């Protein structure tokens, strides 16, 4: 092979999304919010549980979106952060007896630190190399959780059973509904904070790095700091999602946090539209409901049906739900003109 150094203009892995286009308009947001608030009053507990999971995975997809869509770094290791968050909450609740709500910020902070540290070596890696590094993290995590040394805390291969919280202050609602509204409030809080983060100075720095790292550093952006910061923020949010997930599912075990989860979250991001934060919830719906649809079509071939459906989606809308939203917006615009 030639020893000459290869010079390439590397096309950014993620297309530029103008920051305005990263969110929904005020009107649409309110409609979605109203739907999310009212819906649980009319459905069975089981559906409420599914909606809670929808929000939780939505948060995890959002976190990946900040990392990939925001700062252009690719991660297949989100399941590891999710697992750390879940175990943090579960251990604090079951061994320390801490209130579930208090465990979440701790899960978030621990994961932020973990992500920030992991971002340090990841700094020198990009593209497939970063993919491999994060992938390694995802495969290592279940094995770490199983280690005998931590078994007293983690429950080893058997996992930990978590108690589901009741509604506080004697509120007249079931556990599922309470947990749903609790999750909804946290989700909205994190969503709003994320939108503001991406609009802030830091957000502009993320996007400058995403679009062209060298140019960004030439313009005085501290590339190393912001890249690791993006990892930390993303891991922190994923950790909160993991903690919520542990409370909703009432169980943590290494088998729940394999590489499959990381891949699902990745698919959720692609389907929702990379870099488009509201798409996270669409992506989350995809990874929860499409497997159910696939298996109702064929048990023996559920994997294949899922694959075909995924192909259909990416053929029709290669840019995910964002593309649908843009088209819809244009059509609405035309209607208004007439």
């Amino acid at each position, binding site marked *: 092979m030639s020893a000459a150094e*290869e010079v390439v203009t590397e096309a950014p892995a993620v297309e530029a999304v103008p920051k305005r286009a990263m969110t929904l308009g005020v009107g649409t947001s309110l409609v979605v919010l109203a739907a999310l608030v009212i819906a649980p009053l009319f459905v069975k507990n089981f559906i409420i549980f599914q909606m809670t999971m929808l929000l939780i995975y939505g948060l995890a997809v959002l976190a990946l979106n900040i990392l990939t869509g925001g700062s252009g770094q690719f991660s297949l290791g989100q399941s590891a952060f999710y697992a750390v968050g879940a175990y943090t909450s579960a251990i604090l609740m079951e061994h320390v007896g801490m209130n579930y709500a208090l465990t979440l910020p701790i899960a978030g902070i621990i994961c932020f630190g973990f992500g920030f540290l992991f971002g340090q070596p990841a700094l020198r890696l990009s593209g497939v190399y970063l993919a*491999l590094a994060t992938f390694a993290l995802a495969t*290592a995590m279940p094995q770490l959780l199983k280690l005998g040394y931590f078994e007293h805390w983690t429950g080893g291969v058997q996992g930990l059973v978590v108690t589901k919280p009741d509604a506080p202050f004697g509120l007249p609602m079931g556990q599922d509904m309470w947990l749903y509204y609790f999750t909804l409030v946290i989700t909205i809080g994190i969503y709003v904070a994320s939108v503001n983060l991406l609009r802030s100075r830091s957000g502009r720095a993320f996007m400058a790095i995403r679009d062209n790292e060298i140019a960004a550093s030439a313009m005085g952006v501290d590339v190393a700091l912001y890249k690791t910061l993006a990892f930390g923020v993303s891991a922190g949010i994923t950790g909160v999602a993991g903690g919520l997930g542990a409370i909703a599912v009432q169980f943590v075990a290494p088998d729940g946090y394999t590489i499959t989860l990381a891949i699902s979250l990745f698919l959720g991001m692609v389907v929702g539209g*990379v870099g488009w934060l509201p798409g996270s919830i669409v992506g989350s719906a995809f990874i929860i409901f499409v497997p159910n649809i696939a298996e109702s079509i064929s048990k023996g071939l559920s994997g294949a049906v899922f694959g075909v459906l995924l*192909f259909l989606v990416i053929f029709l809308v290669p840019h995910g739900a964002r593309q649908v939203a843009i088209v819809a917006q244009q059509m609405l615009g035309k209607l208004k003109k007439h």
Partner: protein
Amino acid sequence: MELFTNQVLAGIATGAIYACMALAVVMIYQAIDHLNFAQGEMAMFSTFMSWQMMQWGVPYWGAFILTLALSFAGGIIIERLLFKPLAKAPVLTNVAGFIALYAIVNSVAGLIWDFTIKQYPTPFGSSPFLGSQLISTHQAGMIGITLLMLILLFVFFRFTRVGLAMRAAASLPESARLVGINTSWMIALGWGMAAAIGSVAGMMIAPVVFLEPNMMLGVLIYGFAAAVLGGLTSPFGAVMGGFLVGIFENLVGTYIPGVGNELKLPIALALIITVLVVKPAGLFGRPIVKRV
């Protein structure tokens, strides 16, 4: 000391598996500039096809050649049908496509051939090789085949017009088009060749790990790691990477007290990442300089 030698030899034997797969990984990387997550499953499917032919009475080498040809054609068809339409879509959407392909191939193979393991024949026999019980004649044969493929690939990329054109098309598509290379067909050709190499890997690996739909799951992780360690641009590096990972992993498992055995994959991966941090293009890859 004997244990050390034995583990190194056993590492070379398993390393041959990784090397075989890593070659296929490098092949596809040369053609399309990213990794194909469905590669292992495609190889598994090819191996099942050859197994089926042998069940129908086709002799080993007949099935081998036929499978090679069918896999080559299959790879091209998959590219034309499923990935050509995505050529203009974002890279991450393509990755999602690989995952979809993975799910489809795995599930279809499971339905046709179910999940019980199947014995797969070897043309080389499985008696001890050169008196060493640690490497069987099959594993020696597999190393031989891997080296043969390596030489063929080297010649192909270095000395044939098509090979050079393919490299050009993958690394600088615009410029390649300007000098008259049909980049779109180069990609299809790359898929075909990667599928064919993968099928050889599958047919060599199956006698060791037994044939079943999930057989490539672990192999692919190690194959990726090997290819990345060796350098994704270098077939030679990929093969060396394969052997190194094999040896590496065994020594970690044997000599790191306490957690070594339970965590040998994570530790091996961590070491690879450390190598990458120091040498981002892999041990044998060409360094890449970015332009603003």
